[in-house]
């Protein structure tokens, strides 16, 4: 069973190795004539006026929380769907109850405007 995962590990190493090789090859093959203007970050030709890492919209944070909730829900649903035929009607009802409880939270988030972007 576990030896089935061996090719996955090798592929992981090769895929990331390939990335490193491509980057290194590009660095070696490319021209290297850096100067101060090239090395500054893009800002329509100006020197950047303010610091970059100032703040960002709180809605991204709310979205991340909602994502965690629903992604875990999906992670619960996958094994449930595999075993769907074996757990019978009771198993189905239980999962629907669980989904309903989550939907109450979802409705609350909707009502509170966590899903609004203007």
């Amino acid at each position: 069973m576990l030896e089935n995962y061996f090719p996955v590990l090798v592929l992981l190493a090769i895929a990331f190795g390939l990335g490193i090789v491509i980057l290194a090859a590009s660095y070696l093959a490319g021209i290297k004539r850096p100067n101060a203007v090239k090395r500054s970050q893009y800002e329509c030709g100006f020197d950047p006026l303010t610091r970059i890492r100032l703040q960002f919209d709180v809605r991204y944070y709310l979205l991340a929380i909602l994502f965690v909730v629903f992604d875990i829900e999906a992670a619960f649903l996958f094994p449930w769907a595999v075993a769907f035929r074996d757990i019978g009607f009771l198993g189905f009802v239980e999962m629907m109850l669980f989904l309903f409880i989550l939907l109450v939270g979802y409705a609350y988030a909707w009502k509170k405007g966590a899903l609004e972007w203007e």
Partner: protein
Amino acid sequence: MAEFLEYMHGMGTDLLGPVWPLAWTVIKIAVLLAPVMFCVTYLTLAERRIIGFMQIRIGPNRVGPFGLLQPIADAVKLFVKETLIPEKADKVVFLLAPIITLGAALTAWAVIPFSPELILADINVGLLYVLAISSLGVYGLLMSGWASNSRYAFLGSLRSAAQMVSYEVSMGFTLIPVIMLSGSLSLKDVVAAQSGMWFVIPLFPMFVIYFISVVAETNRAPFDLPEAEAELVSGFATEYSAMSYGMFFLGEYANMLLVSTLGVLMFLGGWLPPVSWLGFIPGIIWFLIKLGVLLFAFLWIRATFPRYRYDQLMRLGWKVFLPFSLFWIFLTGTIIHLVGAV
């Protein structure tokens, strides 16, 4: 073929001894990755040519016959450009970001079956593996935006990450009815379960939502807001140049190919022919035809639709697709219980 493989195994074991399994795996990976990379590079050309024809232009046709050497010319050009790293960037994270994006997009291919025998790692949680690995790509985008230390890259990567995780949720939910019908997470078994009827027929709305979700998840037009060049220059890739820039796009196209392949396996019956009397045509041909149709749809959509606004995009994902796919899970379960064991 089987005798040839036997012969190879015998000779390899004699020559390399205990290292042979590793060497054999590396050979198999090369055989897997070479066509994937080939498809990725030629997908870029196909995109430019097809969209060109759709807009009554010719598209790139100067390099080689019909422009067939264009991807090679593009690659050479990207390789000889200067790799610029902004002064204020976090250099390690900055260079790690494209590696993670491309690495995640390629690693997910390990469990994709191209026919009942043609599969690198036949693990029984294949679908879960693909979803887990492909969602790692979002780290690459977040890291690129953070490490660039540039306003446009930062905003672009935030948008991109929010969009990707939003549509990942609805994409995951659309696949659950498929698992309920097939009763397995192994991609091979899912295809085998479609021998009677492709899942696209009973689950047609889920297929539509899946396809729209993956278009959004791979940041393709009309959902290409992270790269909306009119407002964000080039989004998360603003500060990248040369091949570190090219790798984001290799990753994007590899992801496009991956989600199309997954759609073929989950909904369109993989290598199964549409009607059984067409079974004399090899399965891999059917597989490639279906894959081609989905990839063409990606390009067609890009040539046809104007770009979405960000609030429309988030509304579609969270307020339409999410409740609807949850409702469809409920409906599928109810119908299976009403009809009895389907």
